[in-house]
């Protein structure tokens, strides 16, 4: 019975499979299909405003409609189409390429997908809440705050919340991919040895981990400005006084810094997977190994690191000082050079090759050519003197579309490349070539005239008559480009039935492991445990694995138990809970992996309802408030359900794990997550420092903070948290010594101290809210001034972390009381990592917000 064989996973023909599945290949397919849906969504919006632009004036959409179309087109394409499309491939291909049977945390992977899908749905719903966000995809402040959003602005709030949900999906995904790639590589595959597509994904997720954390900070602050009434992004409290009387002169620039600190790495986050696909297709269809592979990889690593040090090239005209402009000009030019090397590496890979102009290769080659044009026109922008004049014009629009859509071009190549692997069928080659021809013509007809008409300001519908010919051409090009995609949809859809069956590998000279298994690959991916120990791919059977793992030495490769279940912050406790609840045949030692869980879908659905509710709570509407409450309950409840669910994700018995061989996967996942949380809090603290410097560091305390805001409550809370941290380590010590009483008492103490922390904070806040002094007659609350906003929001975010920690702590105290953790303190250790981190954050918040 297939039910038993697939471990509760219904067949692919059954709809329920797609709601239950946690298998990386299924999720990859879900990502691909969903991303293509958003491509159509964002593309139709683009066609709408290209139609508007065929002549000057807003006669079709109206000015607000036009701004909405432009803004959501950008957001949908950048966030909901291109990266998720790339991650469809990443999900499907990376585990296969590195020799893993799935991602490290399969349920978290499903959760990422569903959060992504529902964030997109929320984006769609925002159109029906009056109007959606209309302030451009860069969402500059203060146009992104309620004071300047027409109408009630609920749609705009929904968009911000949708982005937060999307960011949550990305962060979980980053943690998951990093843990997978560092813990689950086939034996013999050093990091530098993994196939180039997987390497590009590895660097992409590294950038995602840090960049999206900064974006999350910006979005959380913006949400708070929308819903809670903080004033981070408003320069004046009454919203109308002259700039020179500003209460918060750093408001606009703060957004710009946070957004572009994310935004520039985002360019490479979008482009790196495409580069990986291009390199992969070039190797296969030229029959040559990537020339200069080592330097190609070094280039990518350099770019990934340096991408966090170029963001101010988007802000050359904001009045930042000359030294900083010079530094960022230098880093910007510096970061362009590795791309030169990568381009030449691809070009020379063709030399002495056997180049076959298949559809995937045509798209890869086309992408390379478009990228060359995009790169050269980007050098123009690196020259500050030119950049000043290109700022806010179609030069920028044309340039970044040549870069970003060249990335999309490579990814379409990837779709043709892996289509036979995913479906087991071959697409129609002739139609593929016709698609490429129309696509390439449409693309250039759409974007090249924009260079010619570069004097047009961005995001306007009025432009001078003599540029009309170019804009009309671009519109025609846009429709050709759109139509070409219909050919692809038709081809790929029909080929599902009519396509020829393919074997394991339809492409001569393909080398990577996904082509060594059937098309589509079986649920468990490989016929045995893959290894590259003797220089090329082979599979070890059970016998050999058993011999290797039980024998002394075991060739130095770490081989640990593999009983830890999958889970995230909310389910750190599952490491210990899984074992007793595991079905008998698994407890008997059979390493059967689970592939189905309904909880990820439910968690995301709850999150969606909660966020939709949150978008409207400020209206006080019963519908919105109850949606927020019900959604919140469903989320927390299903997270709890997910924690209790027995789910088995075995670790590979033999794997390459440098440099994290001794860091168990749950622990590595936790540390990776904490690294992104460091950036989140760092960005909050950085925001505080920035607005304070903009205001005047020394005047800040005197002008904006009441004398009633004293050190004592902060000091008491420091003592409480330090002591609670101390108790967590004591709980570990007690668990090691198998003292049930000691473990329970220490955890209960931690809980009590955490609650004390929150109560103390509550008393303090309540007092400050209601002070009545000469300076602050109406209390000192979230909206009083920028200092109060930063204080309440930053310590509030910390308080939220404490609250989440307390929920986990309460659950663990109960588990300890029923006898868990004795002799195995790992779950307590992982919780401790989180709790101590929260403690460390407070060690900085205390002096910054209470003393200095």
């Amino acid at each position, binding site marked *: 019975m297939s039910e038993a064989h697939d471990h509760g996973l219904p067949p692919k023909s059954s709809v329920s499979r797609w709601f239950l599945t946690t298998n990386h290949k299924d999720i990859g397919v879900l990502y691909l299909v969903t991303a293509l849906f958003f491509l159509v969504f964002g593309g139709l919006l683009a066609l709408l405003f290209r139609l508007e632009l065929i002549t000057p004036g807003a006669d079709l959409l109206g000015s607000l409609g036009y701004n909405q179309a432009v803004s959501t087109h950008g957001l949908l394409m950048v966030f909901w189409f291109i990266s998720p499309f790339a991650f469809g491939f990443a999900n499907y291909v990376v585990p296969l390429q590195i020799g893993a049977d799935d991602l490290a945390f399969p349920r978290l992977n499903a959760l990422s997908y569903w959060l992504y899908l529902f964030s997109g749905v929320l984006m769609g719903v925002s159109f029906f809440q009056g109007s959606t966000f209309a302030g451009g995809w860069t969402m500059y402040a203060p146009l992104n705050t309620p004071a300047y959003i027409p109408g009630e602005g609920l749609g705009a709030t929904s968009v911000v919340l949708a982005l937060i949900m999307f960011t949550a999906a990305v962060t979980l995904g980053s943690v998951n991919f990093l843990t997978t790639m560092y813990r689950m590589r086939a034996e013999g595959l050093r990091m530098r040895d993994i196939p180039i597509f997987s390497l590009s994904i590895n660097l992409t997720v590294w950038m995602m981990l840090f960049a999206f954390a900064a974006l999350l900070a910006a979005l959380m602050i913006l949400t708070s400005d929308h819903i809670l009434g903080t004033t981070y992004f408003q320069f004046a409290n009454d*919203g109308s006084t002259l700039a020179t009387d500003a209460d918060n002169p750093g408001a606009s620039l703060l957004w710009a810094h946070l957004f572009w600190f994310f935004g520039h790495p985002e360019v490479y986050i979008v482009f790196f997977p495409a580069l990986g696909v291009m390199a992969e297709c070039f190797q296969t269809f030229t029959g040559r*190994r990537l020339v200069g592979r080592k330097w190609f990889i070094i280039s990518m690593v350099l770019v990934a690191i340096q991408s966090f040090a170029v963001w101010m090239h988007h802000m050359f005209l904001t009045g930042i000082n000359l030294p900083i402009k010079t530094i960022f000009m230098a880093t910007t030019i510096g970061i362009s050079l590795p791309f*030169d090397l990568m381009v030449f590496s691809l070009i020379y890979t063709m030399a002495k090759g*056997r*180049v*076959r102009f298949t559809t995937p290769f045509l798209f890869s080659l086309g992408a390379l050519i478009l990228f060359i044009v995009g790169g050269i026109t980007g050098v123009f922008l690196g020259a500050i003197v030119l950049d000043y004049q290109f700022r806010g014009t179609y030069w920028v629009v044309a340039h970044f579309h040549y870069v970003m859509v060249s990335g999309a071009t490579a990814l379409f190549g990837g779709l043709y490349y892996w289509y036979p692997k995913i479906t087991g069928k071959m697409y129609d080659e002739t139609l593929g070539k016709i698609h490429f021809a129309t696509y390439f013509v449409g693309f250039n007809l759409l974007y090249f005239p924009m260079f010619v008409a570069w004097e047009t300001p961005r995001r306007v519908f009025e432009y001078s008559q003599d540029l009309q010919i170019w804009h009309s051409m671009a519109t025609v090009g846009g429709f050709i480009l759109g139509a070409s995609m219909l050919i692809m949809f038709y081809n790929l859809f029909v080929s599902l039935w009519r396509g020829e069956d393919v074997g394991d590998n339809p492409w001569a000279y393909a080398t990577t492991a996904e082509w060594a298994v059937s098309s589509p690959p079986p649920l468990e991916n490989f016929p045995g445990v893959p290894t590259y120990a003797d*220089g090329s791919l082979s599979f070890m059977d059970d016998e050999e694995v058993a011999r290797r793992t039980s024998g002394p030495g075991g060739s130095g490769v770490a081989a640990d138990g593999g009983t830890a279940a999958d889970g995230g912050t909310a389910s750190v406790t599952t490491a210990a809970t899984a074992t007793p609840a595991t079905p008998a045949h698994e407890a008997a030692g059979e390493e059967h992996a689970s592939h189905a869980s309904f909880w990820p879908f439910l968690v995301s659905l709850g999150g969606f309802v909660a966020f939709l509710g949150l978008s409207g709570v400020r209206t006080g509407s019963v519908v919105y408030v109850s949606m927020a409450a019900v959604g919140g309950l469903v989320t927390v409840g299903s997270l709890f359900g997910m924690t209790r669910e027995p789910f088995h994700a075995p670790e590979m018995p033999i794997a390459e794990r440098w440099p994290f061989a001794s860091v168990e996967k749950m622990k590595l996942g936790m540390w990776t997550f904490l690294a992104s949380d460091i950036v989140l809090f760092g960005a909050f603290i950085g925001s505080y420092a920035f607005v304070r410097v903009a205001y005047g560091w020394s005047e800040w305390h005197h002008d904006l903070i009441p004398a009633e805001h004293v050190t004592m409550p902060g000091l008491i809370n420091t003592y409480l948290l330090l002591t609670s941290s101390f108790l967590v380590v004591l709980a570990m010590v007690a668990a090691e010594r198998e003292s049930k009483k000691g473990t329970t008492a220490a955890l209960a103490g931690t809980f009590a101290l955490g609650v004390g922390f929150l109560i103390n904070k509550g008393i303090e806040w309540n007092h400050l809210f209601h002070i009545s002094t000469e300076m602050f007659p109406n209390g000192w609350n979230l909206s009083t001034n920028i200092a109060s906003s930063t204080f309440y929001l930053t310590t509030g975010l910390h308080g939220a972390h404490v609250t989440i920690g307390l929920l986990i702590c309460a659950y663990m105290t109960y588990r300890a009381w029923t006898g868990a953790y004795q002799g195995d303190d790992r779950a307590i250790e992982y919780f401790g990592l989180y709790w101590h981190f929260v403690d460390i954050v407070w060690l900085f918040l205390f002096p910054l917000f209470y003393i200095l």
Partner: protein
Amino acid sequence: MVPHAAIGVPLHGGDVRAPADVFNSIFEVFLVLGTAVGVLVVTYTLYHAIKYRETAGEDPYADKVERPSMGEMPTGGSGGRKVFYSFGISAIIVVSLIAWTYSSLAYVEDGPQIAGEEDITVQVEGFRFGWAFIYPNGHEASTLKVPRNRVVRLEVTSRDVFHNFGIPELRVKADAIPGQTTDAWFTASETGTYQAKCYELCGSGHSVMVAPVEVMPQDEYQSWYAGTNGTQNGSSNQTAASVGGAPA
């Protein structure tokens, strides 16, 4: 040369390099070089693709290169040296181009220092959806009037949201940020009417957020400016504030 003494204030007489000149000359070089490099590299790419296309029969390079095989450990192919030569050349071009433009940056930033010449400083305030120009004497207007052949310095800010002030023909541009002041300068040697535009999305009227810029002969400007003293202050201010002051 305009006779300086005749009107009391010395002019630079059009021999100052305007930002527009700087931009146009650099842009031209970039366009020529960029097109040349682009055509070259794309041709080179296509040449490789076509030259090494698969042909019927034996692999002509079978003895020169090893073809990859299924399941091999990923490694690099031979021929890396050429990559470095090409990369070196491209790096030299890019770095020297940018370094060359950097020498103009300081000038474009600070403007010319002309002995004896008095610059005109105008405050520019953006609002949804228009521009207000405030002169040293407090006069506020919705048209920017400046004399030809004089260095005009702008102090740009915003009354509400993020805008960007630019006069495309004169190649001057600066962000207009609430709470911040940004500086820019320009000079025009041709009299006439130009148009200032907004280059940062600022709401429903962004597309029509324009203002006329009049470059006038020095004496005409002088007499216009003399007539603005004190009294007119505030009239246009009122309209400006009522249109742009209150947020939506």
